[in-house]
């Protein structure tokens, strides 16, 4: 095998020629010099979200390693060592606060990144695998959140993990086995923490770094997706240095924002599902306390578990709820193949609409989980919550419509209309959440069927009318 010689003279001195003679890095530099980022009609901000997510992940790696210097997993040490970090170790509170804030911000930027990919149809061929690797990273991020949650071994962690792992029993066939493997026993105990600790600090980071590498290689090989209307090579921005420097500047802004939040709100903004006061130590013999809630990005699943009745279609309610969530995730993962229009490079407002409907659906469940408008009593008034959240849910729906008009993608509203209909039926007319959902899905199916028939007839008419 001949050694790469790159483009430099064999006698040239210096580090670059030395490296180039051995590894042939000149073509790589040439590639970077010519790499361009397409400039679309839409705001460029969407192109930076992946980088921001990666930045927050890097913060997680660094602050995570720092936390490991003091954290001790164990029945009588987990809680105590976190308390030691936040009260005794110099800047320990800052490191933990950065780790928590950055975790939430990472999920936020990741989800925004994914939604923007959906709206701009960047998943269309040949970028299906970029979407799939991104979807895996999204799943890993949720896994990080879930496993990291248990590590302080406080009350909240204990019950969140009890509920979260319990849903594993819904997996057909191997559910019980999976449940026991995750928990390291029949119930949540310190054995569960040991397993989650290994998952959180070894397994998930390795998997994530590996998949991030693929995600980035795919993007480097194919370039960033051009906006639909601009598929012809148009204007571009030089990746290096123009785009890279903007990236860097934005990371600096993110770091400043993160540090400010971590300093001024060290225990989070105080929104249920986005706070990390250590609280009381986990006690397996204490009952779950009122108002217990998971992290904000799991709230919709939590609320769905509450909305499902004890039994549905011969399944237990929680099983049916988890089955529904699994189907929704599967549809989301397969979008690059489902979106036929985008596959053949036509505008596909239906999938923009689907993304917006997903947003409205998630927003309504999340608002309900926060018991907005539930009064001051010990137990919130469920009807009042459904009604108050319905107003806000419709505001979200209206905002997506305005957004789509601004984006110039306002042609298809069936999905959003169905999501809004469910909110109206449930919030204002008092129909149960599931019945309202069923009615909305039924009407959605009818309208989609009519559209399909009409387009088929139109196609037939064109073929018959113009025999060419």
């Amino acid at each position, binding site marked *: 095998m001949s050694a790469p010689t790159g483009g430099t003279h064999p006698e040239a001195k210096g580090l670059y020629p030395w490296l180039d003679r051995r590894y042939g890095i000149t073509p790589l530099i040439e590639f970077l010099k010519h790499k361009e980022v397409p400039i679309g009609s839409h705001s460029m901000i969407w192109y930076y979200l992946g980088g921001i997510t990666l930045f927050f992940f890097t913060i997680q790696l660094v602050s995570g390693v720092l936390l490991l210097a003091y954290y001790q997993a164990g029945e009588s040490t987990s809680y105590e060592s976190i308390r030691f970090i936040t009260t005794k170790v110099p800047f320990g509170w800052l490191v933990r606060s950065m780790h928590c804030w950055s975790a939430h911000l990472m999920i936020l930027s990741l989800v925004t990144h994914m939604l923007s990919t959906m709206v701009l149809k960047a998943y269309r061929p040949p970028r299906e695998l970029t979407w799939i690797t991104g979807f895996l990273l999204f799943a890993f991020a949720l896994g990080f959140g879930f496993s990291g949650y248990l590590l302080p071994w406080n009350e909240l962690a204990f019950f969140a993990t*009890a509920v979260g792992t319990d849903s594993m029993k819904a997996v057909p066939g191997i559910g019980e086995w999976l449940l026991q493997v995750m928990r390291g026993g029949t119930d949540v105990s310190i054995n569960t923490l040991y397993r989650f600790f290994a998952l959180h600090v070894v397994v998930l980071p390795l998997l994530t770094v590996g998949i991030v590498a693929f995600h980035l290689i795919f993007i480097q090989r194919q370039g960033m997706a051009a906006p639909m209307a601009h598929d012809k090579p148009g204007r571009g921005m030089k990746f290096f240095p123009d785009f890279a420097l903007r990236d860097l500047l934005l990371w600096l802004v993110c770091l400043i924002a993160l540090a400010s939040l971590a300093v001024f709100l060290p225990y989070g903004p105080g929104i249920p599902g986005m706070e990390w006061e250590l609280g009381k130590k986990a006690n397996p*013999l*204490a009952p*779950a306390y*009122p*108002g*217990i809630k998971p992290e904000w990005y799991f709230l919709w699943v939590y609320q769905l578990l509450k909305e*499902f009745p004890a039994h549905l279609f011969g399944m237990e*309610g929680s099983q049916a709820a988890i089955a529904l969530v699994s189907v929704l995730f599967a549809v989301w993962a397969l979008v690059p193949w489902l979106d036929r229009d985008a596959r053949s490079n036509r505008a596909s407002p239906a999938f923009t609409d689907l993304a917006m409907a997903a947003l409205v659906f998630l927003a309504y469940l999340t608002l309900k989980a926060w018991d907005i408008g539930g009064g001051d009593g010990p137990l919130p008034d469920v009807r009042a919550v459904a009604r108050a959240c319905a107003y806000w849910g419709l505001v979200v729906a209206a905002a997506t419509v305005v957004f789509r008009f601004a984006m110039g993608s306002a042609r298809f509203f069936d999905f959003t209309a169905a999501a809004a209909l469910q909110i109206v039926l449930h919030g204002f007319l008092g129909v149960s959440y599931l019945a309202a959902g069923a009615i909305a899905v039924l009407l959605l199916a009818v309208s989609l069927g009519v559209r399909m028939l009409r387009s088929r007839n139109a196609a037939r008419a064109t073929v018959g009318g113009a025999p060419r």
Partner: protein
Amino acid sequence: MPPVGEKINRRSLLDVLLAIGVVGWLASVLFPVLRYLKPLGVQTQNGPIKLKGEELSKLEKDHSVIVRAGAARIVVFEDSTQQLRALSAKCTHEGCTVQYVPGESVIWCACHNGRFDLDGRVLAGPPPRTLEKYSCTRESDGSVVVQLGRGPEAA
């Protein structure tokens, strides 16, 4: 496997043997790993449980206490007629720990708002099954004993 009707030659036979070898090798690696991860069975407690001193005083003070029975948890409580009762403390919905609400005479799970009556039957909310019931008695010396195991008393 070679297509039907084609003669099995040396190459395809080797391919099949190789495939069997790879599958066998994977199985021999995976089996110990999976077996390793499956937790050891926990000892199940079948005999009666006698409440300890601090548990008794908690029962006295709060009208209820949650005690451990092997891996399971049991809520022992005193209803408004001073009768002692014992139910599984693990909500049948998603496994949170339930609590006795003396004011309303219900068993309540704070996680997803499930409600049970004092015999463990579901009153409202998402729980799919009743809580298991145990017999609980106060002995003549004042100690409290919970009988475990599915007995006729669970009716």
